[in-house]
Structure formats: C-alpha cells, structure tokens
C-alpha cells in the first residue's frame, strides 16, 4: 500500500535508511557493469528512482533488499539495452549442461581449500567477473552481501529453489575457473 510520507519524512528515510547502503550498492553496480562510470550512472539512477517511489517503501523494513532489487531491475531493463553486451545465453541450456554430476566430481579432485587460500592476486575477482550475469549476481548477493535465500528470491523475482540451484551451479563454475588458474600457476 502506498505510504503518504511528508517531505521531511521522505528525506529522513532517504538519508537514514537508503544512503547508508551506497557502498554495497556501488560495489554491486560495479560487479554487474565492470565499469566505474557505468556504475556511477546505475547507482545514481537507482537512488533517484528510490526517492521518486519512496511511497512504496515501508519505513523500517528491509531497505537494502528493496534498493538492490531496484538496482538489479534498472540494470536489466534500462542499462543492458543501452550497452552493447552480447545477448544473454539461453539459461536453460546452461542449466542443463552444468547440471551434470561430472562437474562436481572433477572439482573435488582439482581444487583444495589451501590452494584457494594461497590466491592473493586478482584470480578470484577475475573468476567472478567471468561468470554469466545470472550466476555472478547470486554470488554477489549471497557471498559478498550476505543476503538470505528468501531475500535473494525477492530481489531476483525467482523461487527460492531457483536461487539455490543457481547458487550451486555458480559455485561450481567459479571453482572450475579457479581450478584453471591453480593449474596455470602450478599449484596442482
């Protein structure tokens, strides 16, 4: 239900509940666009939208999830249309392919926790950035921002089961990439 906040209340909510998340919001935008100028545009658009539609936010509820949802939608609806990013992979195809058990089996052999802990360079960042956007997004939301599965489901507009399976596959893909780095660095 739409709230009828006064001008003063709107600014109070914006300053005390929305602006404190500007760091995580910028980080999210940067991990999606991989470009600093684009991140600034995306975060600014998101905050201006949040201010314009502040009446649909209930004071004291989960502002971070609300803002992340707007940013994610802005990225998909406005931003990606403008950018020259190649068309999205067919998700089902990826899903079916990486659903095979072979991936899991190979990973347990190739990569160890100690190897990952020794990675001090940009390997993890590069591996994350190389993931398809849907997989990258769940890793950002869960591992970087600590959102719960039900919050992620709301941010992404998908069922919780999809969040779980996407996360599982994203982690396997990430491990494949890290295992490649490890092999190239001579760790294995």
């Amino acid at each position, binding site marked *: 239900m739409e709230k009828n906040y006064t*001008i003063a209340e709107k*600014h109070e909510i*914006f300053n005390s509940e929305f*602006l404190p998340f*500007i*760091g*995580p*919001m*910028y*980080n999210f935008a*940067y*991990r999606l666009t991989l470009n*600093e100028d684009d991140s*600034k545009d995306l*975060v*600014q658009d998101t*905050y*201006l939208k949040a*201010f314009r539609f502040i009446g649909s936010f209930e004071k004291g509820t989960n502002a971070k999830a609300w803002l992340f949802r707007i940013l994610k939608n802005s990225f998909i609806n406005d931003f990606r249309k403008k950018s020259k990013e190649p068309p999205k992979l067919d998700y089902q195809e990826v899903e079916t392919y990486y659903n095979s058990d072979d991936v*899991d089996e190979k990973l*347990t052999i190739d*990569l*160890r*926790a*100690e190897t*990952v*802990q020794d*990675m001090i360079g*940009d390997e*993890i*960042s590069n591996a*994350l950035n190389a993931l398809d956007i849907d997989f990258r997004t769940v*890793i*950002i939301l*869960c*591992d*970087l*921002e*600590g959102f*719960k*599965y039900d919050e992620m489901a709301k941010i992404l507009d998908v069922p919780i089961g999809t969040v*779980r399976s996407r*996360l*599982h596959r994203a*982690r396997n893909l*990430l*491990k494949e990439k*890290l295992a490649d780095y490890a092999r190239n660095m001579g760790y294995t």
Partner: protein
Amino acid sequence: MNNNSRANENGMSENGPEDCMKLLSKVLDNEANDDLKDQFLEHIKICMPCYQRYHLDMAIKQLLKTKCGNKKAPADLIQSIRTQTSPPPAQ
C-alpha cells in the same frame, strides 16, 4: 538432507550425496538451524569428500568477501545524489 530426512549411523543422509550438497550449502550460507548444522558438522568428521568440499566452499566464500566486496562509492557520486534529492531552498 532436508528437514524430513534422517542421518544414518554414519551421519550420512539416507537420501545420498545430493542431499548432503543441499545441507552443505545451507550451513555455508547460514540458512541451517542449529540441529541441522550440528548434524552436518558431525557428518564431516567422518566423510572426507564433504569435509573437503565444505572447507573449499568456505575458503572461496571468505576470499570473495575480502577481495571483491570493498569497492567504495566515489564522493562525487554521493554528493550528486544528495544534490538531486535535496529539498528546494526555503522561500
């Protein structure tokens, strides 16, 4: 391993490795209640693949958090947002 599944005497889910993976993710992501968490931590004492997988996943999760989660918002961005949302000056 879902809420309805039981562990056998080895701590292994009766529904097999797929359920172990689900439980592992729940524990990793702080979605498991204390009982499920204890059940899993008991299980990995005797199951090497789950033990290794859990520690690998945890190491990656921690590395992601430290390496990819700290980009600071530029000051000019914050200023620009504040300017564009600030109330018009009082007459």
